[in-house]
């Protein structure tokens, strides 16, 4: 019992959320589940079922909800914005449908940015880390390029490298393959698989793609703000 509790990285307890505009709508209804270390979880469901909303609540970016959210054993409710920002910086990695790379910086600097913010290692060490991550994703040769010189699949891989740079406990993805063709999708999937098995990182992926979800460890299916299968 004790060991399984320690293995839990993220736990949602009775999370309920409303949208108020234009009328009060319950978008998340009493959601409870937990994610363990190195688990590869996907959330599927129809458009508008609340899966992205759930992801943003779990990511701590959205703090307007009822219920409790534990990340690495700490309750996130009612915490200050700065505290939550530090949690995101240190313990969560993000990959979105859009890459959100800063076009003013080159690839390497984009990957380094969250680690520079965390400010635990020297700049040289961070640079080495970033090059290692890029190497792991097979795009080390792109390090000095600017994001606008990259293809869509390459950009997404840079975004994944950025999500990995601080070795977070969990990487959260919102439609990471939504903009990618089949070949690039499978590359991204393989990377995620390797992350969970080799690095022991948990992955929480919101996706539309049933084939993508099929190959994950665990599928959470949502409908109308409720979990109907997990």
């Amino acid at each position, binding site marked *: 019992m004790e060991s399984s509790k320690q293995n839990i990285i993220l736990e949602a307890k009775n999370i309920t959320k409303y949208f108020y505009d234009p009328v009060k709508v319950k978008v998340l209804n009493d959601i409870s589940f937990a994610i363990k270390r190195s688990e590869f979880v996907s959330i599927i469901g129809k458009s508008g079922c609340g899966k*992205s909303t759930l992801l*943003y609540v779990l*990511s701590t*970016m*959205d703090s307007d909800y009822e219920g409790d959210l534990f990340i690495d054993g700490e309750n996130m409710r009612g915490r200050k*914005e*700065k505290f939550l*920002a*530090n949690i*995101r*910086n*240190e313990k969560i990695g*993000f990959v*979105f*449908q*859009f890459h*959100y*790379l*800063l*076009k*003013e*910086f080159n690839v390497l600097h984009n990957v380094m*940015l*969250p680690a*520079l*913010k*965390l*400010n635990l290692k020297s700049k040289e060490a961070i640079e080495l880390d970033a090059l290692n991550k890029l190497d792991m994703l097979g795009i080390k040769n792109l390090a000095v390029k600017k994001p606008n010189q990259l293809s869509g699949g390459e950009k997404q891989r840079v975004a994944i490298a*950025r999500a990995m740079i601080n070795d977070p406990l969990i990487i959260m993805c*919102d439609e990471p393959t939504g903009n990618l063709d089949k070949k690039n999708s499978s590359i991204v999937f393989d990377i995620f698989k390797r992350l969970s098995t080799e690095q022991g990182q948990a992955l929480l992926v919101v996706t539309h793609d049933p084939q993508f979800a099929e190959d994950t460890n665990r599928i959470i299916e949502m409908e109308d703000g409720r979990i109907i299968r997990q």
Partner: protein
Amino acid sequence: MNYSLIISVSKSLLIAKWKQTLIAAIGVMIAIAMFIALLSFMTGLNIMLDGLILNRTAHIRLFKEIKPNPVQPADNYFGSGHNFISSLKSNTARTEIYNNAAISKALQNDNRVAGSTERITTQAFISYGVIDINAVVNGIDVAKEAALFSFNDYIVKGNPADLNNIPNTIILGKALAERMTVNTGDVIQATSVAGIRYQLKVVGLFQSGINDFDKVQCYASIITTQKLLNKPENYITDIGVRLKDMSMAPAMAKEYMQIFETDAEDIQSANAQFETGSRVRSVISYSVGIVLLLVAGFGIYNILNMMIYEKMDSIAIMKATGFSARDVRWVFMGISMGIGIFGGIAGLIFGFVFSNVIDQIPFHTSALPTITTFPVNYDLRFYIIGISFSLITTYFAGWIPSRKAGKVDPVIIIRGK
């Protein structure tokens, strides 16, 4: 907070949008440059105009006023009580300052005093050919007058030191000399109120810029004037005192009046209207400068606002990956302050250049014969005020947009894609 990271992000955003940045910085630069040029020029002009009066006027003038003796024999004879004396007349028998050597010495030892000089003022007729003109002859110590009251700046012809070096010499006001068609080297005849006539050689011409003044004023050495009046060597009618701090003049005038038992007039009561003009000019220059900076501030505000809309994505991902609202705010404050610093420094340089250009423009005035170009006051204070203003304005111009950037909700941006 990791300042070096914040600064490096600000710098990258600044450089990425270098055209907008440049325009904003140019706005600040022009404001600061104009501010400095305007103030340097205005205060230069102020100092020059003030100098017209201040430089040649004694801060405190010690003299003996022509007035009835306050202690009348009747008071001594009848003792206390009130005595009515009718037909009381002023007495001009002794217009000199008693014991003036001791007073001069006491003034020399007073460390509030920058210097003092003795003078004799008297009326005389100046005759040349058939003309007699009434004039005021000032007996002066040329070296001291030059040191304390910039006497030499107003000599348009001749050498003022000749007053001391050559006996029986005089310097005439330029307007007076023109009326009589006298030039340097000519000999005029002066007749004093004592009825004594002297042949005096004209060694120089004097121009104060105030024509009425130049029509009646003449300068001779103290000894020449004493001879003209047939007075002994200790005859002095005025002592001009220049203070280290002009604002002390009223209080010190009262003090001297008591100690030296003479009359004393301070420059503030003699020229009361005078400071108002310079103050109004300063206020105008400062307001124009501040308005220019405000306009530049609004420019920065606008550009930062635009930049925040363009950089919504970057702000969203920065917040998602762990930058707090405060970090984001400081990134944008960094941009604003960067514009302020570079615009400000460029403004200082251009302000100096503009002042220099103004300083080269020819400017001739009869008031000040020694001045040939526009007066400019290179005061370090304007540069310090300029750079502080630029930093303060850009700080406040950046404040509201930066707060806005800090409040961006990443969820809304990311969902929108």
